């Protein structure tokens, strides 16, 4: 029983990481109906920036928000420079562009930072604390806490502020939004910036667990896809719930059923299963358009 609780807690920690990256995917999907295949690589690059700042002596707790700010600016720039020229192109074109972007960022990271894995130290110790008879590491708990704070902040931004309201309006009804004076094109850039910052959180959280190198996010993005698909690709709440479910499921199935080597296969099974049985996911809107 005690071990089960420990597995669940560490599953929730991975879940928080998946949820952040899945939320980043959902933010862009909502804004332009596009799955951003470069999301993981953008997060990895941001993590390298955080690593560089910290290794130059900057305090972790200053480097963290600073990196999120830089990631935001980077996301906005990518949208303006790379996506804007093909904004009205068919989705397939955009998908290919994001795939190219992923390769480009991956190569750039290798060029600037090298392919040698780096140990990214976390300020939170791996010591454990006893909670109700189960042991959880400070690191897992901090990951859960940071993810919760970030997800809550995004939720409040989207639901409680005027800028969030205009973001949602522009995402769902670009034409009607323009007639209300909303700068739809800038809302897209803002969406990319936010997604980039939220994704960066997942990278910085996962780096101490894995090792930091250019391919670090390539499995994490699969889990994030599973989380986003499970939650309903257009639902921010779904991304969070999906992330937690995927994290816990993968951890438990990995620990008790198939073993650690097949954990990624569990994520792929979730993606296929959801798409076959319930394509809209848990919280997604029905994929019906009124024309």
């Amino acid at each position, binding site marked *: 029983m005690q071990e089960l609780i420990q597995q669940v807690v560490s599953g929730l920690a991975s879940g928080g990481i998946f949820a952040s990256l899945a939320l980043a995917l959902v933010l862009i999907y909502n804004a332009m109906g596009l799955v951003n295949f470069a999301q993981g690589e953008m997060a990895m690059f941001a993590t390298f920036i955080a690593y560089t700042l910290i290794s130059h002596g900057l305090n972790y707790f200053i480097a963290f928000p600073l990196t999120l700010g830089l990631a935001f600016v980077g996301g906005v720039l990518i949208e303006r420079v790379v996506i804007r020229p093909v904004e009205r192109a068919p989705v397939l074109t955009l998908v290919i562009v994001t795939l190219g972007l992923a390769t480009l960022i991956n190569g750039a990271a290798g060029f600037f930072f090298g392919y040698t894995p780096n140990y990214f130290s976390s300020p939170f110790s791996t010591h454990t604390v006893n909670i109700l008879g189960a042991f959880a590491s400070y690191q897992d708990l901090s990951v859960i806490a940071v993810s919760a704070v970030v997800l809550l902040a995004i939720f409040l931004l989207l639901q409680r502020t*005027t800028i969030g*309201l*205009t973001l*949602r*309006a522009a995402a*769902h*009804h670009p*034409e*009607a*939004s*323009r*007639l*209300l*004076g*909303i*700068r*739809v094109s800038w809302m897209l850039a803002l969406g990319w910036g936010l997604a980039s910052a939220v994704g960066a959180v997942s990278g910085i959280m996962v780096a101490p667990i894995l090792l930091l190198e250019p391919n670090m996010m390539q499995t994490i993005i699969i889990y994030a896809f599973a989380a986003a698909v499970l939650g309903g690709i257009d639902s921010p709440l779904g991304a969070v719930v999906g992330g937690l479910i995927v994290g816990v499921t993968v951890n438990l199935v990995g620990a008790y059923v198939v073993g650690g080597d097949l954990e990624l296969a569990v994520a792929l099974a979730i993606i296929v299963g959801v798409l076959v049985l319930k394509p809209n996911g848990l919280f997604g809107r029905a994929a019906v358009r009124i024309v």
Partner: protein
Amino acid sequence: MSALLELEDVHCGYGQTSVLHGVTLAVPEGGIVSLLGANGAGKTTTLRAITGGVRWLGEIRFAGRSLRRMPTEDIVSLGISHVPEGRGILTELTVDENLKLGAHKRKDGAAVHKDYDRVFEYFPVLRDRRRLSASTLSGGEQQMLAVARAMLMKPRLMLLDEPSLGLAPLVVRSIFEIIRTINQTDHVAVLLVEQNARLALELSTDAYVLEVGRVAVSGKSADLQGQDSVRRSYLGY
């Protein structure tokens, strides 16, 4: 004195298909003008040209200023609110959020507050449904929401695209009454596109009848109502 909105020899179309072949019309400050005509005559396209939804040739001026190459967001900020075909309700959002979007660019907080009160006075049903998703509203209520939201933008000119479409006659009457009230108390000019020519002529002071992308007839609404030949050939009643 020049008019608030002027269109001069406006041509436009979609791709290879041209829809407007030289439309000239004017909406005076504080006036109500109806734009009538059969399906496909170019009424909706005329409104879309004004708010930059389609590219056009010729000249469109609002308050003396050319709208050439201006993006929709900027045109709207000059004081034109456009209730488009299909009402432009954001059905994923609540009634309240839709209204908020109408006022989101305004800086005059106290006046916005007062306008909310007036909107709810005109359309009490919207106050009752504030927290509900806009998708749960009936067609008439959605039209009310669209007009209410347009009002909260504090425009000098409202473009209304077929506000009567698909609504029960009683609902249409009450919406038209409120349009008249808004026009009179706030001096908001209105350009009204309608299939229901009889109602539109009752409400408006001037009218234009479009026929395949050209103004076929224009004049005082009262005169057009009086001419049997015009009524029979163009207005169908």
